[in-house]
């Protein structure tokens, strides 16, 4: 596998979809979305793990494929293929040109993020993914889609900003920003400097916003609720998956020990799971319930991460096994969304969807068990893993996910009977989001009115007053009087003599 061929292949994986995004290029191709996935499939076919350096891209970034990211690539290829078919087989109306553009853009950035081998490259692809997915959410969507999109965008912009600061700290400590080198440097500098503590917390907050972990999860239910089926299907596998991958890639797991932070995260994961289950059960629409189901599964991963931070041995193991978990998460969400399509009366009751529903329920219910199996550390530390928070409590996790699964199944069957009722109010009941949003819009309104009405009025009145002062008649009259006085002969000659006298005396 010589260098040029591998370079061409790796570059074409994100490159081809990007090129096809231009309407002119793909107008003649039969199925552009599927064609775009071709290089990724070829890459999967090639067994060897290799990576290339691209010195001229940004600050010298690289692309590469290894065992772990191969799983993810497989998952994403499957998901994008399914989504493309769903997109291609429109229920009646013509495919919206702009939706395909955003579809291809998001695909390109998603594949690029998986293959990126350095911090800045990954961050670039992840940020563009955010904007691309916003386009997918909002393209030709109705008012609810636009509102969900707006909330999602706010979360993405803030997340990007926080991650940008984290990257700065990383770049300040080490010149080379590739993953392994960055991890070593950050770990070494961990003892005294608070910088790495700042770095870890910022990475966690940034990706928490992107994943939708419990206190910062508002965009997830809205997105699930408003997105069209093809886009909702990708929700689990694209934005959430890349965010989780980001956490694993950015954090120097296995090389730093932050016991109190790790414990805190584990408690956070537990509370998120309980909150997700309680609110999930209260939902009336299957799709919003899915959002809370995803939240529960991700909180599973978060507790694992917490334990990883607490014990470096577990962290190292997690680094290897995390892609597997992310893959299963992606498939679970995809299956559930496919299953929930049965609720929409518009799609036919095909056998495929029924099996998807059954698989979805199974995967959701068993996800805690599967996580434990998948992420069991192969090397030492099995005992440690057993005592860690998750393993001990996995029966309770099972309870939550099983409850959610059956609740979702019940909702699905109940809905199948009657027609699609008017969509419940946009705000998922029981969530504390509305209070926050009302406060936010109030402050926004006050801020805008301050800017648009109040300040300009004060400024203009001030300027007018100053203007009047300048034009005051008395100034002009004084100048006229002065000039006219100087006209008179008597004053002029008197001044003349005075001047002569002054010069004579002064020169004495």
């Amino acid at each position, binding site marked *: 596998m010589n260098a040029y061929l591998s370079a061409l292949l790796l570059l074409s994986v994100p490159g081809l979809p990007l090129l096809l995004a231009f309407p002119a290029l793909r107008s003649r191709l039969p199925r552009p979305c599927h064609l775009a996935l071709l290089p990724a499939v070829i890459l999967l076919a090639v067994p060897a793990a290799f990576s290339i350096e691209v010195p001229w891209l940004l600050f010298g970034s690289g692309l590469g494929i290894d065992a772990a990211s191969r799983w993810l690539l497989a998952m994403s290829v499957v998901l994008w293929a399914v989504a493309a078919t769903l997109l291609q087989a429109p229920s009646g109306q013509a495919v919206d040109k702009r939706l395909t553009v955003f579809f291809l853009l998001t695909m390109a950035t998603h594949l690029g993020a998986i293959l990126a081998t350095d911090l800045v490259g990954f961050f670039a692809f992840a940020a563009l993914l955010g904007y691309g997915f916003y386009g997918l959410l909002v393209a030709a969507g109705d008012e609810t889609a636009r509102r969900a999109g707006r909330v999602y965008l706010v979360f993405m912009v803030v997340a990007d900003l926080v991650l940008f600061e984290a990257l700065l700290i990383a770049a300040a400590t080490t010149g080379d920003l590739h993953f392994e080198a960055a991890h070593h440097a950050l770990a070494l500098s961990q003892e005294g400097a608070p910088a790495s503590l700042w770095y870890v917390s910022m990475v966690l907050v940034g990706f928490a916003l992107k994943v939708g972990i419990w206190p910062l999860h508002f965009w997830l239910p809205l997105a699930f609720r408003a997105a069209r089926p093809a886009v909702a299907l990708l929700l689990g596998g694209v934005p959430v998956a890349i965010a989780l991958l980001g956490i694993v890639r950015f954090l120097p797991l296995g090389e730093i020990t932050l016991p109190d932070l790790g414990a805190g995260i584990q408690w956070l994961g537990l509370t998120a799971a309980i909150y997700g289950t309680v609110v999930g059960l209260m939902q009336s629409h299957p799709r919003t319930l899915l959002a809370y189901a995803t939240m529960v599964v991700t909180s599973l991963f978060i507790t694992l991460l917490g334990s990883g931070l607490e014990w470096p041995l577990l962290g190292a193991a997690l680094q290897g096994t995390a892609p597997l978990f992310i893959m299963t998460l992606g498939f679970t969400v995809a299956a559930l969304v496919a299953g929930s399509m049965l609720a929409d009366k518009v799609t036919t009751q095909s056998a495929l969807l029924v099996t998807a529903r059954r698989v979805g329920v199974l995967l959701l219910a068993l996800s805690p068990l599967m996580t434990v199996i998948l992420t069991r550390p192969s090397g030492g530390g099995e005992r440690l893993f057993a005592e860690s928070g998750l393993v001990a409590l996995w029966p309770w996790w099972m309870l939550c996910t099983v409850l959610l699964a059956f609740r979702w199944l019940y909702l699905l069957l109940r809905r199948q009977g009657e027609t699609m009722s008017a969509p419940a109010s946009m705000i998922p009941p029981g969530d504390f989001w509305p209070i926050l949003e009302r406060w936010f819009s109030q402050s926004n309104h006050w801020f805008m009115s301050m800017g648009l009405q109040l300040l300009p009025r004060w400024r203009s009145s001030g300027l007018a007053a100053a203007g009047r002062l300048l034009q005051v008649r008395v100034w002009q009259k004084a100048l006229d009087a002065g000039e006219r006085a*100087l006209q008179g002969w008597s004053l002029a000659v008197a001044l003349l003599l005075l001047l*002569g006298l002054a*010069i004579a*005396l002064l*020169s004495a």
Partner: protein
Amino acid sequence: MGTAVANTPWCVMVILLPLAGALVSFLWPRRSVPLGLVTALAVPACVAGLGWQVAEQGVQRYAVGGWGAPLGIDLYADGLSLLLLLMTALVGLGISVYSSGYFERKTAAVFWPLWLFLWAALNALFLSADIFNLYVTLELLGLSAVALVALAGGADALIAAMRYLLVSLLGSLLYLLGVALLYHSFGSVDIAILAQRVEPSPAVWAAVGLMSAGLLLKTALFPLHFWLPPAHASAPAPVSALLSALVVKASFYILLRLWLEVFPPSDAAVGQLLGVLGASAVLWGGIQALRQARLKLLIAYSTVAQLGYFFLAFPLGTSIAWKGALYLLLSHALAKAAMFMAAGNILRCCGHDHIVALDRVAKRLPLTLTAFTLAGISSMGLPPSGGFTGKWLLLDAALYTGQWWWALTLILGGLLAAAYVFKVVGYAFTPAEVSHEVRVVPVRMEWTALVLALAAVLLGLGTPWLLALLDIGFPFDSGYAG
């Protein structure tokens, strides 16, 4: 040919030629325009010859009629007088070309003799070496200038001319009284001899006071400027150009000569007094110029303001300050002549010169507006104009000697100049409400205004040569005082 050029008495030629031209054009009124133009071309050539002679052989002293200094009248040409002769030649040539297109036949016949006569008086004044001869040339200059102002024939022109005459005579008599006192104390009127003999005494103080007062009145420094705006505004355009650019500078030149060479070194107080008057002239002239409604009055008041700049050099006193003031003087002459010619063009084209109703002059007379703006740039002191170099040198001297308040005046003066120049330029772009019938302006007049304005702007690039010229026989140390 080199030796022939070297030893012909250029000093005398420079005075005789315009005098002869005046007489001839007076005798043949029908041919006055071509004769005038020929003289206007010949005089700069003579000045160039004189310049080359001074550059080669240093200071020139020529005894008129062969008699020696104490009795006879000497002609003395050093760097300073050469610079001013050069200025007069350049501006004079421009004015001659401009007025050949401005006046119709009847007034041209009267204009040319008077103008050439004035030119001769100017050249004589810049060359004369004794104070009584300065009085005579000053008087000649005054009379011809008054006659030229009265040329316009309007009521306010005649009144302005009358006032100008009375003021000029008053100034000259004061000056003559001073000369009398100096002659009585030291027995000679020649500047060089006086410079050696003078020592402070009550008679000398009185003489200094009288002569300075007389010359300040004729230079129209701030409190005594009342006669200048009406005279310069109501005179015909070429006349107001030569009045502002040349005539006013003559009395300043005499004051400079006396101050540097004849008057005993007085303490700084007199310099500060002149500086204060100059600064107030700059501010008062600028503000009044800003308030004028008519263009020619605006330019006249701008002259009052610019004159103030030259007097700032007195309190500073270093050689750099004098060079700065003289540089400003030279670039002001070129710029002011261009401005008045532009005003003349606008007056000729629109029939009036109310600034508010300039009625898209930018479109009708683009060259004139460019000339006016370029001249404005030089009077503002923006680079690369001569005004900038002058202002730079004065600023340098002010900051070097620590008298920062003169620097402040220079900056404020520049801002005021910018204000009234761009006020006019601003109105030139927008259409006026009532549009007047348009009379065509000969191209020659527009091009002379533009050439003079360009000369003022590009003067800044020729600084080293002109300053070197000034150093020949300069009355004080020529080293860079910076």
